[in-house]
């Protein structure tokens, strides 16, 4: 892991600026400096549409542009990009299967100081419950840039979940990313940690620490929550005794639930879900909140140790 730290919202801003398709347009609802679409705005003023503080209008406008062959990236904070405009997305984008990319930055408790109203913990749940919607949640700079290119090429609605908190760069530049294909990091068989977005780096830290104690786990970066990589989930369920999911999202309806859906039907097995336990967030520093809500590396480490202790594998 390199030392370079960058938030996926920043990587997103850089990535859309590099997209080559002339049909790409970017829509904003008065947050371009925070969602980092201001880079695109500067270089492509004719393809940047500022609708002001009116997210519902932004979603509808994006839908109209898509019917005329444009590839709109509509961006605002995750809380406004999904919850506030759920019906607009449902009726005007998901049902007609229009080619709109909804980009929600500042997802999860790692928004930090802005507190509960701005910490979107239900967006994966809302978006993965919509027919035709693809849900993508990248974990680092390289993955975000690669997946932004992929979703631009994909024909249909996508929800892209992005974070405000800076996280380490995980991947080398030559790694290939494909929508719907999770990435296994490590070959450990003591446990599998399924993570997405900001929790991937935490899971990797836990992997490193546990290895010092002779515990070898694998981390699976589930960058696409819908369609979920069933094959990978079943494979890990067969190969490792402990399964754990960790996400900066409500434990109801998020990554853990998506994995549990697959396990229930394909390979019934216990899954420990780390996430926000069906409550709202609170103000604080992002890292402190990760510890408080037990989705940081230490919590992952301790959960696995405890489980191994019960299983008598750790003395």
């Amino acid at each position, binding site marked *: 892991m390199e030392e370079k730290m960058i938030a996926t919202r920043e990587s997103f801003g850089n990535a859309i600026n590099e997209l080559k398709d002339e049909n790409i347009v970017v829509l904003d609802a008065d947050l371009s400096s925070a969602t980092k679409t201001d880079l695109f705005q500067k270089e492509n003023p004719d393809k940047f549409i500022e609708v002001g503080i009116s997210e519902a209008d932004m979603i509808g406008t994006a*839908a109209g542009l898509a019917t005329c062959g444009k590839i709109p990236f509509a961006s605002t904070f995750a809380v406004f990009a999904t919850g506030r405009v759920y019906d607009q997305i449902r009726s005007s984008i998901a049902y007609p299967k229009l080619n709109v990319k909804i980009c929600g930055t500042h997802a999860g408790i790692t928004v930090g100081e802005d507190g509960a109203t701005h910490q979107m913990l239900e967006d994966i749940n809302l978006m993965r419950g919509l027919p035709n919607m693809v849900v993508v949640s990248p974990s680092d700079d390289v993955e975000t840039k690669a997946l932004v290119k992929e979703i631009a090429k994909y024909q249909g609605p996508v929800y892209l979940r992005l974070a405000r908190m800076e996280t380490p760069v995980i991947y080398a530049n030559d790694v290939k990313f494909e929508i719907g294909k999770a990435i296994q990091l490590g070959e450990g068989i003591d446990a599998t940690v399924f993570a997405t977005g900001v929790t991937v780096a935490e899971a990797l830290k836990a992997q490193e620490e546990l290895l010092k104690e002779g515990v070898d786990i694998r981390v699976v970066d589930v960058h696409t929550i819908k369609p979920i990589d069933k094959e990978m989930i079943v494979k890990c369920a067969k190969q490792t005794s402990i399964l754990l999911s960790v996400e900066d999202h409500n434990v109801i309806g998020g990554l853990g639930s998506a994995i549990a859906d697959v396990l229930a039907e394909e390979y019934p097995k216990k899954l420990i879900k780390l996430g926000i336990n069906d409550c709202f967030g609170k103000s604080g520093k992002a890292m402190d909140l990760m510890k408080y809500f037990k989705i940081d590396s230490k919590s992952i480490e301790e959960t696995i140790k405890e489980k191994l202790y019960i299983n008598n594998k750790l003395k």
Partner: protein
Amino acid sequence: MKITKVEALSKNANRIRQDLITAIYYAKSGHPGGSLSCSDILAVLYFNEMNINPLKPDDKSRDRFVLSKGHSAPALYATLAERGYFSKDDLITLRNIDSVFQGHPDMNKVPGIDMTTGSLGQGLSVANGMAIASKMDKMGYRVYCLVGDGELEEGQIWEAAMTSSKFNLDNLCVIVDCNELQLIGKTEEIKGLNAENIEQKFKSFGFNTKVIDGHNIEEIMQAFENATLTKGKPTAIIAKTVKGKGISFMENNPEWHGKALNDEEYKKAIEELNNI
């Protein structure tokens, strides 16, 4: 093939009314009131005003139409059939499980439908997106958006109205089907809306506005011409209409917002329309 004769357009509108009533009668459910109120507007749009070709429903340079008040779908289906997008015979399958004619318009099922609608308040934003795309690509096509007066109670309409105005969308024309009734009563009593203050609202949002008789074919045609000639700002036509227009027992009766006709009512309705 544009029809310019007022009488001919009136006849088109009458046939649209008969077909939509027949479709709703066979479906045993649907929204006759608001479909009848906008039939004249749709007839003028599809037979006179819009630059369209039923043989090329996906032509990139065509004018676009968004039925924001999606529950008036039977009127749109009947209009498209009348215009030749598909056979009239299929209209009576409206709302059937195997039919393409959904309760509300679905752009992926029916040729000629430019946008899927149904949840009120969203169509004007979509029409803005289309009008912006037309300008970006210098395609020159125009976009028409039909909204209900009751629908104006949705906040998103006014978010969108600001956008239409900010982007100087002079290729956009909003038509308000102002029949003064909504499901449970009068728009005036429910949210204080009437044709006059609706015009004031759109004017203050930066629109070129015009209040017309929404059943007078000539006035509708003139209003569209005026909209096309207006540069630098979008147009809102406030069309005063009668809910249930053309069928005596439905006119101005909110009970007929969303209800099908029985055998006797159907017979009477067709008789009345035949005698116009």
